[in-house]
Each structure stands twice: as structure tokens, then as C-alpha cells.
């Protein structure tokens, strides 16, 4: 049997047989299951395709499994408080956890705690990274969703506490779920809230594009990969589909049916807590407090399959299957370090074993930087100036200029070589 392309990862709050299970998307056979404890909602995440992390419900630690060794709990990361939400950046470099009203951000390669962000006033409910890991969005019970730029958060600057890039503050009740679309910093973000609305934001400007008011509080939200449809899981068990691109051009208006794609998936009997759409946008996965996970065909809005659980479903999502998952002999590329509990390990006297080099930007190295386009413009004007001079005489100056530039290239090459030598030496040195 060939390994499946897409898998469903799900967990419930009882965790009688297993903590979390991996199912095949199309046949829903149970492929793997990971044992030990249970996972709280919105806190199951896959790190770099090598580890599965899940925060223990009501306790202050995170369970970690290696993705191919299904039964064995690998590690427990002890945190300063109960973890309410957890997410790993898609590039596998950072891990963010919401603990009470603060966000903790770790660097995965060293285990250093990079930042503690306490801008929320109440407990966090959800954390999401953009697909390029450049930003993350946090939502809390204080009605706020904050957009953080990872670069500015990580930046080493003791005097300034990092500020969020945008504060999305139009919700009137706690935020229950966030979905971040594709396209990195130009993505669109959907936030769901108990105030019965789902709002769609533009990440780049922090402006609201759309607000949809429903009859019930919305517990979960997701977009399909094309961002044609918005799926909203209601607290009464309905899943509402909002079409974001109505194709009602004037010329084909007559052929249109009355309801253009805004329909309800009916089947769940309680809060719909998790929603996820498959890669091809044909299947919708929903997990609910009525202890079932359902798989829907989006086109026909029918429930294809219903999988029973032993308790309210806390996490369910569709992901492309990680390569390591079905190779029992594989090992993770990088061993997981110990995650530190304090901001500055050297001061706390526990970071003796972290001998790695900490690469973080100093405060003002990046502030005044030119954009690439600016640089390109400058370079272009420089080059065109050179050619202009070549064409229209003034050879003397040009020669000087060219020799200057050659000099520049030479120094740059030298620097590059030095850098290469240094790093090669560092890497090859027997530790």
C-alpha cells in the first residue's frame, strides 16, 4: 500500500485509547495513534514534519512524540502554566504557545525562549502562523486578535517590548478561532468570535474586509485553499458556507439559482470546534463537541463519513502526510533540545549546555535598511549612468568608476570567502 497523500490528525478531550490519531483522509482507516494523556483544543501541532506536539489538557506541560514512533511518548516540555494553544511555524524553526494571557516563543533549534509577549489581557484561545512563517496571529478572550511580525518579536532589544504590527479589535466577544490564508504577509485572515460574526482581514494593512453576522456564535472558521469559500462552524452544530466570490456577472444572472453557494452543512448536534479543508478543496473535515468527526463533500454538502470519538473533539485537521510518518526506521533530523522556561538562560544559570551561536538581529540593524526594490533602482540607475557615460564619452570618469566597482567586487568576494572559511571551520571542528 502506498502511503497516503493527505492525512487527518485528530484528538479528543478524553483520550481513552490514544491521545491523538492519524487517519487516512479517503478511507478513514486508523493509520497511527499516539498514546499518553490527552490534548486541549487548538494545541495539537506538527513540528517540521518530525514531531507531534500536543498540550496536555489542564496541565502545564506539552507532550512530544516523534512522528514515526507512534506509541512512545518522547518528551514532556514543562511550561510555566497551563497551555491553552500551541502552534509551530511551518518552517519548523519556532514554536509558539499561549499560556494564560501571554505568548511564549521558542526557537526550536536551541530551545531558547526568545520572547514572552503579554499584550493580551485575558486568556489566549488561538495562535496561527502565516504560511511563510513571517507573521503570527494570536486571538484571545479579550476580543482582540494581534498580528505579530516574527522578525520584530525575535529582535534582540531589551529596552522595547515588541509591539504587534496590527491590533484587530472589532470583535465584541472572545475570539474562538483564527484561520490564516496563503500568500505570506499578503494573506487574508479570518477570525471567528462568540459575538456571532466572522470577520475577514487583510494581513498587510490590518484592515477589515468583510464581516458576516450569523444567528449563532461561531466556534471555528476556515477558508478553502483558493479562498473561494469561508466555512464557519456554529455553536448549534451547523457549518455555514459563505461564498466569497459570487460569480454573478450581469450576463449570466438569469441562469443563476437563488442561493449562490451560501449553504449550511447540517449534521452535528453541538459546537463545531474544528474545521479543515483538504488540499484540493473538495473535502471538509469538521470536529464537534458531539463527539464525532465528520467528513463532508463540499460540492454536494453531504456528510460522507462520520467517525465517532469517546469525547468532545479538540483537534482535527487535514495535512499533507509528513515523509517520516510511515517509515518506522527514520529518525528526526535534529534532536529536540530542552526548552528553557526563562527568557535569558545564562542569567538563570541553567543554560550551560547551550553552546550554540545565537543569531538574532540587534535593534537597529534592520530599521533603516533599504528595500530590495530601492536597491535595485539604485543599482539600475548606477548601471544606466555607466552606460550613458560610455556612450556619450567621458571615458576617464567611467574608467575610474569601473575600477572602483571592480575593487568593490573583489572585497566582497574576499569577505564571502572569509565567511565561508570561518563557518566551514566551525562546522568541521570536532566538538
Amino acid at each position, binding site marked *: 500500500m502506498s502511503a497516503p497523500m493527505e492525512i487527518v490528525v485528530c484528538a479528543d478531550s478524553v483520550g481513552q485509547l490514544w491521545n491523538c490519531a492519524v487517519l487516512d483522509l479517503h478511507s478513514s482507516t486508523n493509520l497511527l495513534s499516539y498514546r499518553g494523556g490527552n490534548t486541549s483544543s487548538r494545541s495539537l501541532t506538527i513540528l517540521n514534519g518530525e514531531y507531534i506536539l500536543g498540550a496536555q489538557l489542564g496541565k502545564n506541560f506539552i507532550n512530544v512524540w516523534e512522528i514515526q514512533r507512534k506509541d512512545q511518548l518522547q518528551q514532556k516540555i514543562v511550561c510555566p502554566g497551563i497551555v491553552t494553544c500551541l502552534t509551530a511555524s511551518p518552517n519548523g524553526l519556532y514554536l509558539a504557545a499561549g499560556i494564560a494571557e501571554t505568548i511564549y516563543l521558542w526557537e526550536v533549534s536551541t530551545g531558547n525562549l526568545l520572547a514572552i509577549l503579554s499584550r493580551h489581557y485575558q486568556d*489566549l484561545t488561538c495562535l496561527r502562523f502565516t504560511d511563510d512563517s513571517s507573521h503570527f496571529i494570536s486571538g484571545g478572550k479579550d476580543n482582540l486578535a494581534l498580528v505579530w511580525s516574527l522578525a520584530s518579536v525575535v529582535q534582540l532589544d531589551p529596552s522595547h517590548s515588541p509591539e504587534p504590527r496590527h491590533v484587530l479589535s472589532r470583535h*465584541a466577544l472572545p475570539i474562538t478561532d483564527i484561520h490564516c490564508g496563503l500568500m505570506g504577509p499578503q494573506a487574508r485572515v479570518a477570525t471567528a468570535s462568540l459575538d456571532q460574526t466572522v470577520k475577514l482581514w487583510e494581513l498587510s*494593512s490590518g*484592515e477589515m474586509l468583510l464581516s458576516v*453576522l450569523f444567528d449563532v456564535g461561531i466556534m471555528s472558521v476556515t477558508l478553502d485553499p483558493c479562498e473561494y469559500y469561508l466555512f464557519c462552524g456554529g455553536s448549534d452544530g451547523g457549518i*455555514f458556507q459563505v461564498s466569497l466570490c459570487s460569480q454573478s456577472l450581469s450576463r449570466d444572472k438569469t441562469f443563476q439559482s437563488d442561493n449562490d453557494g451560501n449553504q449550511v452543512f447540517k449534521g452535528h448536534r453541538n459546537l463545531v470546534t474544528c474545521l479543515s479543508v483538504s488540499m484540493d478543496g473538495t473535502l471538509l473535515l469538521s470536529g464537534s*463537541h458531539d463527539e464525532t468527526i465528520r467528513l463532508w463533500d463540499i460540492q454536494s454538502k453531504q456528510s460522507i463519513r462520520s467517525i465517532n470519538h469517546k469525547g468532545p473533539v479538540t483537534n482535527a485537521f487535514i495535512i499533507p502526510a509528513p515523509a517520516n510518518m510511515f517509515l518506522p526506521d527514520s529518525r528526526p533530523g535534529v534532536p529536540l533540545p530542552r526548552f528553557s522556561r526563562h527568557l535569558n538562560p545564562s542569567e538563570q544559570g541553567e543554560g550551560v549546555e547551550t553552546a550554540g551561536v545565537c543569531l538574532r538581529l540587534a535593534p537597529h540593524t534592520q530599521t533603516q535598511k533599504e*528595500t530590495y526594490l530601492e536597491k535595485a533602482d539604485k543599482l539600475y540607475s548606477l548601471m544606466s549612468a555607466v552606460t550613458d557615460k560610455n556612450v556619450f564619452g567621458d571615458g576617464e570618469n567611467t574608467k575610474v568608476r569601473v575600477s572602483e566597482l571592480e575593487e568593490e567586487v573583489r572585497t566582497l568576494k574576499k569577505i564571502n570567502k572569509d565567511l565561508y572559511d570561518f563557518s566551514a571551520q566551525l562546522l568541521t571542528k570536532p566538538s
Partner: protein
Amino acid sequence: MTKSKKKKRQNDFQKIKLRVGKTKPKASNATNVNFRTKGIHLTDQLKKDDSAPTTHRKLNIKDLLSQLHHYSGTVKQGALVGLKELLTLHPSEVDQHLSSLLSEVAAVFTDKDSNVRMSATRVLRFIAQSVPAERTCPFFPLLSAHLSCAMTHIETGIQEDALKILDVLLDHYPALLAARPALLLTNFLELISHRSTRAGARKSQEGKGRSWDLSVNPSRNVTGQQWRLTVLLRLGRFLQAVVEERRTEDGAAGVSGDMFGLLNGDGGANAHLELNWEDLSYGKGSFQVFEHSGATPTPHSTFKLRPDTEAGAGLSEGLCSVEAVRSFASTLVPLLMDVWVEASYSDRSKTDSAHLLTPDAMALMYQVLSILQLLRKLAPHREHQDTLDVWFRSEYLGVFKQHFMRNFPYGGLDTPKQRKKKDSKSKQASTVAGQTVDPLALNVLLCQVMVSMVTLSQREGPAKEPDADWLMPLRGFVQETLSSGAKLSQRHLHTLLETVWRMVITQHSRAVTEDLLQAVYVQYQQMNLNLQTRTLLLSFFSRLYLQEHNHTHIARSRLLSRWLAALPLQLSQLGHRNPALSHRLLLAIQAAASRGNKDLLKSLHTHSCRLYDPQEGSVVLLPVESQQRLVQLLYFLPVIPVGLLANLSRCCTAGRVSAGLAASLIRIIHLRSSLSGWSVGSQDTAVCDVDYISFLFSTLTGFSSDELSTLQEAGDDSVLPPSPLSPLSLYPTPLEQFTHHWDVVEEVCHCLETLGSRSQCFDVLQNGICKNLTGLAVVPDSMAAGLLRAVARLLDQSFLPSEALLRFLSQCCVSLLSLVLTLQQDVASETNHKREAVWGACVAALSSVPRLLRMVLQLLRVGDLCEEELPQLAQILSLLLQHTTLRNHMLANAALLQHIIQELTRYCQGETREQWLTDLLYCYSVTMAPHRGNLGLRDIY
């Protein structure tokens, strides 16, 4: 013949001899000049040209425009007056001839005759009033060219009138003017100063030399100061226009200026879509979320893909870069300082004390300050504001300190005699001065200008010290003004609040903050403030509160928390008198509540019963939007006491909040109970389970115990009397209340369904009904239907309901069935919904509880009925028989049914068989047919 001919020929050329001393004889062809002429003025045409509208002089627009080229001033003026007349009579002419009109009228801006210029201004004003900016746009370069021509004209009169034209344009087309500020700014400078040529040589040595000097033109008919005032007034207005233009470009959130102005309701410049699920699901209207299908980001993105236009040097580039603004400021500020100094020194000669000013000087200084203030706001982008501030501080702090602060609290020189004389003598001068400025305005503005010099960058360290010496008097003045208790005008208050804001943000001292806020609070506590002022103060405080996260001294302010704690009380006291203000209050409360502010929550807790009172609480008095916010506030209450729950239950059922809102209220309380299952982190539950369930139960019944007991004693007129067919007497609730209650019941049922164990939940419900309701003789129909609905939805097959409950329910059911019949007779369509709801509830209950059906059938005793009720009974039976879901249950009770039908047939044996009986028998036979065949029927006959 020939001879005579010759003679004649000679006679033709007679020589006339002229002699000295004799008068010269007149030549025969001399012109006689003994006549007098008179000119004929054709001011109006005789012939009527019907093709185009004309003035009363019968001149059409072409004639008038051509007359503008006449050399004579009076003709030109006449033409302008005629134009104005024509345009007022025929406004459509403006649209047709706009281009020629504007170009011709603009050409006479520089006319030598002042009357012509005045008329031209009037015509321009008229055109400007009737033509919107976007239509003038293509002709505006022409207009502004003529304007700057007039402004730089060598004649002073034309210069003065050019300012009037500028006024017109500023009034009507500020955006167009502001779009190309460069040329106008130089013109302004040239009006009050001249480029100093001799300084040019020195400039290179000094580096910071000035190239412009103030100038005085002695030939003007106003004093130098008054002239400067008129120019500065226009400059101020012009800069204002530029700043506003910037703001609309930059998005409404605005340059720091309008921090807590009236437009801070929502920040986004983009209009977002607000959709409603119901509209969506019914396909009403379509929408497009992504413009250009999302290919290009909105212009408000904070990611800059392309650098701004390269910064140009000097004024020629306009004010679109920091450097340009800076260079303009560095030209203008020294001039302004000179003006200031001259104004203050010219007064010195008249008065003894330096801080008393004449009205003229005061107006001038006011203008200087307001222009300085505007200069600060000219930064092209918000992010440049700080760099500009820093530059201002470094360049001019010393100068400002020296000149502005020396005599700081300025006062008006009290010269009543002088002013009177001036008013009578030279009215023109006072109109030039514009509005008289009171000293308070001057001082307040001065505070604002000076405080803006405190920059954020130097917040720490000893650098704070040097500011203290000049900030002290300012702070003192602000505090005194605010706390004096006097009523301040809207504008002054706004400026003062901005000053306080800036001080609080920049000064990181708790004591200072506390003092300043105390002063503002004095204003806030004043009685009888008008709405705008109140809103202004309110938004000041709430903005301040929202800022607290990075200013610990604000967060710890005791006054702010006092203010917050007072809000719920104010809200409850306000009632329904001022919904707009209530809305503001609610916004502030909600913000604080969502942040979990302890003081506020405590105060909210104490006042909650008043706020949510079902009779006169804010929750029922305010408009829908505020109601919604109030309901949402419930989520944040740490504990919801029993009394409040009782109130809320009454709110839900009383019908003064909409059913949808009541549903969301129930849902919110559901979320706050431990039974909802949605909890993230360690949030305590606000409602204990017992209270929650009793809340649900009382909401389900829809009537309080008091109401029910009064219903029991009510007379027969309001209640349907009991009869054998309806063992309980029903109280018919009004249709509106019925539907409301029906919607609420649906929501309650949903909550009860999700509680967990079905059987336990039903047990609780059964106990509640048995204890509280079974004894009733009069039951509202909405309650009965609601109970049946809830029972049908909640009953688990494994659970056996108690006898008492079933008896009560069966009574309800029978009564409701007979109600359905009476409703059926009512043809009015509005009862349709009610009938269907009642019928649906009955059928659902009967089909889900088989025992209930049996008890209902047992209740239908034919013997007790009188004759008129027999058909009704038959109808009920046939309705039940026709219902397919009930069929199996009916079959199970076949014996009972047969008995009833036999009785029925026996009772009407004597008469001819009636239609209803035939119908019933038919239904019966059809229902029972497959099982009993004709057997049953044979038994009957």
C-alpha cells in the same frame, strides 16, 4: 459758336482774388459744422435671439464675454454684473460655457479697476457655489495661474483683492488648491517679505543665513501688522486645507492631530462589507470581497513595495517630502518669529506690562501659533511625524522658549474706549482682522504648540530635566483652566485635551498624570454639558485607557480606575435619555470589561441588576445595537448572581428585546456555565449549574409565578373557559408574544439538549413542571405549547415520565388541540404560524411519548360532551388519524379509539348522519384498513 464756347470755358475757372484784410470766402465744398451730435448707447439689443437665454438687456453669454475685453471699466463691470444675473436666472448656462466663463473671468482678476475685480470675485463665488470641485478640476491650472499672477502683481490693490479670490477658492475647492501647494506658498512669502539680496553673500559664510526678510510697504492703506494678519489668515487656512488633504489620503485614522475627535468611531479608511447570514442564505444581493480579485493589495498596506518619490529639494517640489516641509518651515518660521516679535514689541510701547496685548496683536499672534501648529502636521506620512518633531525641537526650541514663554499667560488689554472708536471709524480694519481672538484661545494654542515640542524620543535619563522649567507654567495653566470649573468651548477643550494627552504620554510621572487627569475629571463632572463636549471628554478618557498597555503610569492611575468604576452607574442613570451617549459609555465599558479591569467589573456587578432590569433597565430602554452590547457584556461578568439571572429570564420572555437577542443572551449564559464544555484555560464559571437550569426553566415557561397566579384569578373574559374538550382553561397570548416565546423555547431546548445526560436533564425538567405548574388551572397557550415542544425534544426513550407529568401534559395537549380547531376557523393568515406551531408541538409530543397519546384518548370522554362539541371531537380525531407519524401509535391504541368512535356514533344515532361523522369514519377506516380490514367497520354498524 466757338467764341461763345471759349468764353464759357473761361468762366469755369474764375480766379478768386484773395486780399489781405478781407475774410477768406468759404470754399464751396466746405463742411458745415453747425450741427450737434448725440451718442446712441445700445445697452440692450432690440432683436430677440431666441437661441440662447439672455439678460434683461437681451445680451446673451457670448456678448457678455466679449464685452469683458472692452477697454472701459464700466462696460466690463456691467458685463460681469450681467453675467451674474444670467447665471442666476439660467444655471444651465454655467455647465455649457464653464471653460470660457472661467478663463474670461479669471483674466480680469488683474484688472486695474477695483470695481471690476470685486465683481469678478462675486461671479467667481457664484460659479464656485454651483460647480462641484471635480468639474472645475480641468480648468484649475488656469485659475491658479491667474491667481498667482494677481497675488504677485505690483499693485497693492490687486494683491489685496487676490486674497479675496483665494478666500473663494479656499471655501469651495480646498482640495484642488492643496493639490499643488508649491507656487502658492512662495507667493504667500512674497506678500509679507522679500528675498534679501544682500544676505545672499553672507549666507554662505553663516551657513544658516536667512534669505527672506519681512517687508513693509508704506503705500498700503492698512498698517503693516494688519496686512500681515490678513495674509497669515489665508496662509493658515491654506495649510489647513493641505493638512486635511493629507489626512484623506492617509486614511481617516489621521495624523496625530485629531486623536480623540469626533471621528474616531472607526478607523479604517476602507469600507468593509457587513453581511447578515439570513440575507446571504436567501441569496439577496451578491458581493465581491476582493477588489481586482485580490491581485493588488490595498493602498493602505504597511508593506512598502516601492520607495516614495525621490525627495526633491526646495519648495518647487511641493510639500510631499519631509525635506520639502523642512525647508519650507525653515523659511517660514523665522518670518513668523519676526512677526511675533514685532507684534509684541509694538504693544510694549503702548502698555506697561508685557503680557497684556491689544486685540490686533493678539489676533496676529494667534495666527502665528496656528500656522506653527499646522506646519507640524504637514508631515507627508505618519511615520515622518516623529522625525519632523525632532527637527523642530532641535531647531527652534530655544527661540520658542525665548519669545513665547517669556510673558506666558497673555491677557487681553482692556481698552473699551479704543475699540469702540475703531469700530465706528474703520470698520474695514476690523473686518480684515477677522474674528477677534480671546486670550484664552491664544494661551491654549500656545500650550499646544509648546507641548508638541516635547518629543517622545528623549523619555529617559536626565534629558527630561531641561524641559521642566518651561513645562511647569504650561502645566499650571492647563490645570488651572480645566479645574476652574468654567465652561470651555468645544474647540478650546479639544485643544486643551490634546495638550493634556501629549503631556501625559510624554511625561512618565505618575503624580503629574494624576494632577492633569484630576483637572480633566473636574470638567467631566460638570453638569449640563452638551453632547459633543461630553463625548469629547468621554473619548479622551477611553482613548487614554486603551493606551495603558505601554504606559504603566497611566495604567496605575487611580483616577482612571475611578472614572471606569463610575461608568456603569452613569449608564444606568442615563436610561433612555441619550442613546448616543449611552452607546459611547457602553463602548468604553466593553473595552475595559474585555480587558478584565477589576474595578469596572466590580462596579458592573453591583449595578448589574439595575442595568438588566426587565422594566426600566438600560437593556430594554436603549436601541437595539446598545442592547446587543449590553448582552455581550454579560459574558465578562465574573459571577452572575441569582437576582440578575431572574431579571435576565424576565428580559428574555417579556418581549422587549428581540427574540434573536434573547437567544444570544441565553447562549452567552450557556457559555458561562460549566455545562457548555467550551472553556479554554482556567476561566471560572460564572453561573452554578442549579441557577443555570432554573434560569432555563423559567425562560421556558415564559411567565413568572406572579403572573401565573394573577392569571388564575383573572376573570373569564380574558381566558378561554374550561370545557370537557379542554380540561385546562387556556390564556390566549397575543400573537407577537407567542412567536417570541416560541423562538426562545427553541433556543432553550437546544441548550438543554447539549447539557449532557438526556435522562437526567429530563428528570430535572419533570420535577420542575410537577412542582410548579401541575396545579395550574389556567395555562397560557404559549407555555403549554413550549412545554410540549421541550418534552418532545428532550425525552429519552429509556426514561419513563411520571404519571403526574403525563396527566398535566395530556390536559395541555387536549386543550391545545381544541385551540387548533378554533384557530382553524379563523381564516386570517397571521394565525397560521401559531396554529402550525401548536399543532407541531402536539404531534411531536404525542408521537414521541406513546403513553401521552393514550392518556389523551382516555381524556376524550364522549359521554361528558354536549352536542355542539361532538363535531369538534370528531375533527380532532380525524386530524390525528390523518397524521402519518402518529399512525403506529394510533394502531396501538386501536381499542380505545374504537370505543370512542362507537360512543360517538351512538350519540348521534337519532339524527341523519352528518358530514363530520362520515369524514371521521372514513379516516378511521383508511388508517386501520390494512390491519383490521372491514372488521372494525362492521363492528360499528
